[in-house]
C-alpha cells in the first residue's frame, strides 16, 4: 500500500529549540513514568557569559567592572588553551545554536532555558553551576577572581534563584581567597536556593592548608555540603602533553578530583570535620574503584603517613557523595555494578545530567540499570539529593498538572 505523508519537518527550515531537541527525552520520561518520581539533577549548567553584562553590574570594584563590561566572560577561541572544543566541531548542535534560541521576555532567559530542558527530562529540581567560570581559578589576576565570583553569586541569588524555586546552586568559592570564601558562606548561606558551596578542582591550592579550616568549620556548622567540581586546565604541565580534547578531558576531569580526594583523605579531613558532607562532581565513577584500591593498599603499609585516619581510605569514601555523570557505561555493565557496590551507590550516588554540556546523561542512564531495585532508582534519581540538600520533594508544575488530569 502507498500512503502519502501529510506532516513532515525539513530541518533546513527549523529554528533551534531545546524542547524540540529533547522530544525523545520527553518520550523517555513518559515511558518510564517519571511523573511518579522526584528527580533532582545535581550538576547542570548555564552559560553565564550570555548574561555577563548583567553580572558585571554586580562587580564592586569600578575598574574591574569597567574591564568586565568590555571583555565579557567567555572562552578564548581556537588558539587559546581554553578554546571551546566541547561542541566537538559543531557536531553537538546546541553549542552553536543555543545562543539563537528565542525565549519570551520574562522570566529571565536563563530560567526559561533551564526549564526547557528540565521538563522534557523529567527533572523537578536542578542544582545549577556556571560554565566558563569553572576556569576562573586559572585567571592569572588572582586578586580579581574574588570580585567576579562575588558578583556572580549575588547576581545568581538575586536574579535566578530568588525567582524560581526549582533552581538551586552550590555557590562558587574563590579558593585562592579563604577570607572571601568565608564571607560568601556568611553572606549567601541562608539565601533562597543556596544548597551548598563549590570549589572548582583546578585551583592550585592544597585543600588541607590551615586557612581553609574555617571554611570547612562554617559549612559543617551550617549543615551545608562542600562540592569539588571537576574541570581541567590544558596549560597544566602534565596535561599540556596531550594534543586532543578527548585526552585532556578524559584525564583532566578525573585527575583533579583524584588529587583533591587524596589530599582530603591522607590529611584526615573526614576525622577533623566528621559531619561535613562532601560531593565529588563530574568526574564520572570509574576513578573511584581505582583510588579506593590504590589508597587502601598503600595505607595498610603506611598508616603513619595518614595517622588521623582510623579506618581505610575507602571506608571514608563510601560515606561521601558522588554525582553520576559522565557515567562510564560502554560495554561493561559488570564493572559498573561493582562500582555501584563499592561506593554504596544506593545511598551515596546523586543523579546528574551536566546538561547542556556535550557528555550529558539522561535520567534513563540510572533508571534502565537492571541491577538496581525500584527504591535504589528513586534514591539515586532524587531521594539521596533530597536528603543531602534538605530539599522539599516538590514535583514540577508540569508533572503535577498531568497527575491531576490523570
Amino acid at each position, binding site marked *: 500500500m*502507498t500512503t502519502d505523508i501529510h*506532516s513532515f519537518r*525539513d530541518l533546513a527550515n527549523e529554528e533551534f529549540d531545546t524542547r524540540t531537541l529533547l522530544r525523545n527525552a520527553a518520550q523517555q520520561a513518559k515511558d518510564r513514568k517519571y511523573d511518579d518520581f522526584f528527580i533532582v539533577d545535581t550538576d547542570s549548567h548555564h552559560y553565564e557569559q550570555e548574561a555577563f553584562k548583567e553580572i558585571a553590574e554586580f562587580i564592586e570594584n569600578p575598574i574591574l567592572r569597567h574591564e568586565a563590561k568590555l571583555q565579557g566572560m567567555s572562552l578564548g577561541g581556537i588558539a587559546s588553551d581554553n578554546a571551546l572544543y566541547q561542541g566537538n566541531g559543531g557536531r553537538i548542535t546546541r553549542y552553536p545554536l543555543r545562543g539563537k534560541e528565542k525565549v519570551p521576555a520574562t522570566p529571565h532567559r536563563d530560567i526559561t532555558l533551564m526549564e526547557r530542558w528540565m521538563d522534557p527530562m523529567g527533572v523537578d529540581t536542578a542544582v545549577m553551576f556556571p560554565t566558563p567560570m569553572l576556569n576562573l581559578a586559572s585567571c592569572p589576576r588572582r586578586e580579581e577572581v574574588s570580585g567576579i565570583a562575588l558578583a556572580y553569586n549575588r547576581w545568581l541569588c538575586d536574579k535566578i534563584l530568588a525567582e524560581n524555586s526549582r533552581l538551586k546552586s552550590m555557590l562558587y568559592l574563590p579558593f585562592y581567597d579563604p577570607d572571601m570564601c568565608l564571607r560568601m558562606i556568611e553572606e549567601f548561606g541562608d539565601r533562597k536556593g543556596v544548597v551548598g558551596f563549590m570549589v572548582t578542582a583546578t585551583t592550585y591550592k592544597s585543600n588541607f592548608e590551615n586557612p581553609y579550616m574555617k571554611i570547612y568549620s562554617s559549612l559543617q556548622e551550617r549543615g551545608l555540603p562542600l562540592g569539588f567540581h571537576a574541570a581541567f586546565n590544558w596549560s597544566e604541565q602534565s596535561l599540556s602533553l596531550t594534543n586532543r580534547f578527548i585526552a585532556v578531558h578524559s584525564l583532566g576531569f578525573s585527575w583533579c578530583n583524584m588529587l583533591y580526594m587524596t589530599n582530603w583523605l591522607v590529611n584526615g579531613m573526614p576525622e577533623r570535620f566528621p559531619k561535613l558532607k562532601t560531593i565529588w562532581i563530574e568526574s564520572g565513577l570509574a576513578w573511584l574503584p581505582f583510588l579506593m584500591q590504590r589508597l587502601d593498599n598503600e595505607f595498610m603499609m603506611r598508616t603513619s603517613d595518614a595517622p588521623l585516619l582510623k579506618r581505610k581510605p575507602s571506608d571514608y569514601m563510601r560515606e561521601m557523595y558522588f554525582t553520576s555523570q559522565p557515567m562510564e557505561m560502554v560495554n561493561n555493565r559488570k564493572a559498573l555494578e561493582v562500582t555501584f557496590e563499592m561506593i554504596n551507590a544506593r545511598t551515596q550516588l546523586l543523579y546528574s545530567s551536566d546538561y547542556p554540556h556535550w557528555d550529558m546523561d539522561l535520567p534513563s542512564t540510572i533508571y534502565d540499570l537492571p541491577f538496581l531495585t525500584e527504591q535504589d532508582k528513586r534514591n539515586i534519581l532524587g531521594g539521596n539529593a533530597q536528603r543531602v540538600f534538605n530539599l522539599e520533594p516538590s514535583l514540577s508544575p508540569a508533572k503535577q498538572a498531568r497527575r491531576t488530569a490523570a
Partner: protein
Amino acid sequence: MDEFLICREGELAEGGVRIVQTPAAEIGVFHRGGQYFAYRNFCPHQGGPACEGVLMPQVVDVIGEGGIYKGQTYDERDMHIVCPWHSYEFHLSDGTHVCDKNLRLKKYEVVRRDGRVYVVA
C-alpha cells in the same frame, strides 16, 4: 510493509533532511550525492534524535612512511550521520556506528518511482 511518499524528486534539496512520522517510527530521510537514505530517528546510545544533527565526513589522521604523522584531512566519501545529543557518528551509507558495527541506526528501504521518493516501513 507500506510505502510512504516522502517527496517528489527535486523537492528535498541536495544535503537536505526530512523527518517524517510513519506508523512504524519517526524516520529521517537524507538526500546526499543524488541518493536517498532513510533511518529511524533514534540513537541507540541514549535515544537522541540521531537524524536531526549534522552530516560530517570521516576525519582521517594521515600517516606517512615510517609512522610519521602528516596531519588530518576529511574523507568526503564517508559521510557520517552525527547524533546531536552526544555526537555518536554513524555511516550514512549503512547506519552502523563508525567504531562498533553492532551499534546501528535502523535502516529503511528507499524506493524511487515515477519521480517520487518512498520509504518502505
